[in-house]
């Protein structure tokens, strides 16, 4: 029923475009791309669009920043409901399931096949592609700007405190924090209540589940389990360190988030995205020595691959057929190794394809001082093949669940909640969100 409607809609739209296009034959097919990145990164997206427009004469992509990931999803929804939506939209990791169940998109594989592009899907890193693929492995959207969480540390401070090498385990981190404190550093490690590194990535690399049903991949009737995993011990450790003044909370509300805390050399260790590598290099005091390494694990843990973060590109349905040709051309264009390399160089995001990564390695990209260490993000993402716990997190209303968890962390670190009580609270509220999501999408199956 639905597909028929879609086809009719497409046919009508194609007809309309066909009629409209007759007078001006040479005119390019225009289509829209909405994205969430803003500021410096937003301008790099514009550069990518310009490169595409300059590279061929048939299509013109019009790229518009919606200034924020959640805003992009909201605006795309509003536009879709009004049938004025863009052909391509950038959706952040947390919004993946909303799109998957929306029935409002053209799957990546179908789009490329329909338009005659041969894509080697195996070329995408498994840890990246699986986040945006069905549980059977079929890719629905195109990985675009991808990152993972890393551990940054200030080498100068480490030297001064007599610490050698990068911390590999949380035991190392604790020892380093004590030495830094003893050497007079007031904030050995800064962290915020952002759940991405401390909760999600921690769970992945320690092979701990976030939710049942393989983190939600196998059904909407999934339930959070973060109050029963190693995460409880981990946050208890964070709480203990915080009470001793070794770990320090740094949030926007307090006046300084973790990345500025690191670049101003207030805090000597932080967990943050590899995408901040460029920013840190640009904003930290020139000459300051710092480095990046994989997130630490607890001693005796068999490290697993970390999760991909960032966003992917979705192609929405019910657009004129001609636009899909353009969209496919654009998506093919940005997946070429030289574009992957360019994008990764100017932004700090990691290359999403193996050939892109190989090309960058061969060019000596990672040997350049400014980019040194970025390859460790790839190492982290591809450390092991993905397991049921490290494929991704497929939860409905995930942005809200993240907020519930960070609210609970506020309660734990600032309020009177114990770690267990806080996580129980987050699980209870998070499960309510999951149940509502399950009911809302009762008629739609998760692939």
């Amino acid at each position, binding site marked *: 029923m639905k597909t028929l409607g879609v086809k009719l809609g497409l046919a009508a739209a194609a007809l309309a475009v066909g009629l409209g296009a007759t007078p001006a034959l040479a005119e390019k097919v225009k289509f829209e791309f909405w994205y969430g990145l803003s500021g410096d990164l937003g301008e790099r997206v514009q550069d990518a669009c310009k490169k595409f427009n300059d590279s061929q004469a048939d299509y013109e992509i019009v790229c518009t920043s919606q200034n924020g990931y959640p805003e992009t999803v909201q605006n795309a*929804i509003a536009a879709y409901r009004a049938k004025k939506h863009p052909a391509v939209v950038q959706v952040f990791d947390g919004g993946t399931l909303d799109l998957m169940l929306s029935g409002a998109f053209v799957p990546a594989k179908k789009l490329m096949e329909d338009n005659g592009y041969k894509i080697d899907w195996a070329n995408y890193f498994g840890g990246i592609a699986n986040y945006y693929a069905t549980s059977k492995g079929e890719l629905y959207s195109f990985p675009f700007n991808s990152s993972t969480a890393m551990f940054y540390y200030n080498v100068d401070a480490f030297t001064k405190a007599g610490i050698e090498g990068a911390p590999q385990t949380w035991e190392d981190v604790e020892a380093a924090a004590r030495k830094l404190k003893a050497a007079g550093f007031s904030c050995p490690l800064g962290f915020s209540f952002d759940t991405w590194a401390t909760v999600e990535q921690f769970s992945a690399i320690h092979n701990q589940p976030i939710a049942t049903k393989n983190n939600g991949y196998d059904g909407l009737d999934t339930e959070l389990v973060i109050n029963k995993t190693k995460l409880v011990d981990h946050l208890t450790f964070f709480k203990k360190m915080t009470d001793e003044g070794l770990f320090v909370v740094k949030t926007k509300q*307090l006046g300084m988030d973790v990345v500025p805390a690191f670049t101003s050399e207030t805090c000597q260790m932080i967990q943050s995205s590899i995408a901040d590598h460029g920013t840190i290099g640009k904003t930290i005091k020139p000459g300051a020595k710092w480095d990046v390494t994989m997130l630490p694990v607890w001693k005796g843990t068999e490290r697993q691959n970390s999760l991909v973060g960032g966003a992917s590109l979705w192609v929405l349905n019910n657009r004129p057929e001609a636009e899909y040709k353009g969209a496919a051309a654009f998506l093919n264009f940005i997946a070429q190794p030289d574009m992957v390399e360019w994008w990764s160089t100017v932004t700090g995001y990691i290359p999403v394809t193996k050939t892109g990564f190989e090309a960058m390695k061969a060019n000596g990209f990672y040997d350049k001082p400014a980019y040194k260490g970025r390859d460790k993000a790839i190492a982290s993402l591809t450390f092991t093949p993905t397991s049921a716990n490290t494929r991704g997190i497929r939860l409905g209303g995930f942005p809200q669940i993240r907020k519930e968890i960070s*609210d609970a962390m506020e309660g734990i670190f*600032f309020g009177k909640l114990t770690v267990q009580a806080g996580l129980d609270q987050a699980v209870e*509220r998070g499960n309510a969100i999951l149940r509502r999501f399950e*009911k*809302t999408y009762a008629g*739609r199956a998760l692939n």
Partner: protein
Amino acid sequence: MAFLASDEEAEPVDLMNKRAVFKSWWLPIAFAMPQLLLIFFFFYWPATSVLTWAFSLEPAFGGVGERLFVGWDNFREVFADTEYWRSVSLSLLFAFGATALSMFIAFVLAICVDRQLKGSGLFRFFYIWPYAIAAPAVGLAFRFIFAPESGLIAVVNTWSPDLWNPAKFGSHAMILVVVCFAWKWIGYNFIFMTAGLQSIPRSLIEASAMDGSGPVRRAFDLQIPLLAPTLFFLLVLNLTESFVGPDTYGIVDLTTEGGPNKSTDVMVYRIVSEAFRGLNYSGAAAQSLVLIALIMLFTFIQFRYVERRVHYK
């Protein structure tokens, strides 16, 4: 409009005091049409879709026909949620706190300006400015100024740690948003109060001054009673605006984001974040309807019990 005209027609014709009455029924409607259309398109129409969403489970991207009718489920869920009731009481606390603070300060300022103290002309000009600033901008500025570790206020924490920490303590966070809202609305209240005070005959004030009453006594005995209609109007407006207004959302979003641990999760903030961050359109729609009902109740109480004490003439 139309029924007003017919009301007048029904009155016995007073030849001595002839009034113009619209005889045609369509002309007043035509005049009212632009406004009616605006209200229809920007209030009633959206309100009906809120109504359908509130009684169903609406998927984010739509999908007519698949929408599930769930009756009162969304409301039951809202009412059963303890967090929701906490949010209601936080909203009330916020609304009364912000209204009291902003009206009190505005009144003091208006009285001072009305007394023609030195520089009052200049102040009258400047006091309105905060109202012209968009709430998110105010929120952002306040977040920087009141940031406990790096803001201008950080100095108080060097006297005693955590003397001021809205990121950590819910009560401080509430004070922050209340102050922020009040600061923005003082200017607005001030203008109305100044205008009201200026319409009070000088002779009355002077007479009581000659009888030996000070400014405070005059404020309580003369100015407040005579200003009652203005104060009542501002009270209704401030309470409604702080309870449901966009300024509240903007300020909370930019300063505390509802935290710490939901200590400033007022109803408007909750609704918007559920609808747009959580894409839970149905739950948010149900909450909006409850909010509208609460506002109606609120306003009814004010008119029923407070307005009785207001004398317009």
